[in-house]
């Protein structure tokens, strides 16, 4: 599928994961979609069938993040974090951890929005404490998507 090729996901060094994606909108809009609570609840959902009924999101340095996801089969988990730096409309730095239900080690995430043609190139660079944590994270889920994918896959088998 053509849209799949717009996303890149790669590991860098021992502790980084770098995701890039182009969007057909200006950096201001993409930045707002990453920081506006109501907008986040519309897209940050992982696979189909999941919703984010709780979205606590305070986009200022030190501001708290708490995202709770649920699926239609009674599954759910949450993520907590804090914003560290915000530079409208070019850069967001935050830390986050998944609760599965035990908290995963902190994931330090820097998200950049750069003008790219008539749109925006987003580069999300994650830094994990060590190589094993990164490996475990790639295996157990990022942004909830993997875990949710697996739950979904199991119901298909």
């Amino acid at each position: 599928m053509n849209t799949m090729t717009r996303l890149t996901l790669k590991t860098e060094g021992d502790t980084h994961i770098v995701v890039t994606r182009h969007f057909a909108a200006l950096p201001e809009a993409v930045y707002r979609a990453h920081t506006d609570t109501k907008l986040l609840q519309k897209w940050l959902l992982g696979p189909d069938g999941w919703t984010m009924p709780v979205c606590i999101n305070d986009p200022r340095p030190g501001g708290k993040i708490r995202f709770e996801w649920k699926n239609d089969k009674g599954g759910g988990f949450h993520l907590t974090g804090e914003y560290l730096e915000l530079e409208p409309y070019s850069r967001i730095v935050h830390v986050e951890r998944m609760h599965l239900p035990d908290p995963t080690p902190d994931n330090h995430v820097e998200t950049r929005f750069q003008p790219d043609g008539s749109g925006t190139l987003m580069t999300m660079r994650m830094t994990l404490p060590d190589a094993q944590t990164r490996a475990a994270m790639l295996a157990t889920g990022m942004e909830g998507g993997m875990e949710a994918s697996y739950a979904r896959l199991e119901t298909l088998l």
Partner: protein
Amino acid sequence: MSADFDLNASFAALADPTRRAILARLASGEATVNELAEPFDMTQPAISQHLKVLEEAGLIVQRVDGTKRPRRLAKAGIDAIDQWLAMLRKALEKNYERLDEVLAAMESNPKGRKR
């Protein structure tokens, strides 16, 4: 998809997050039970039980090195890791496809900017 291993056993083996993390650890090289147990707050017998499941599913293999039994990924394990990465991409792409729609709606409704 290769047919030379039991798919059901593989998926059952992969359903557990600890086992997926063990496979991910082995993706960076061979490791002993002690090394594998280290990042998890689990006893060695508990880890050994997970290793047994992974082995029976054909995802890992062991060799004998004196008193040690280091484990490494089998071909099926490598395929499984590729599959996770593909799923991870898919989950992220799903988010960003929704974000494309959100952005398109913002564009066509510029008054929304004032919120």
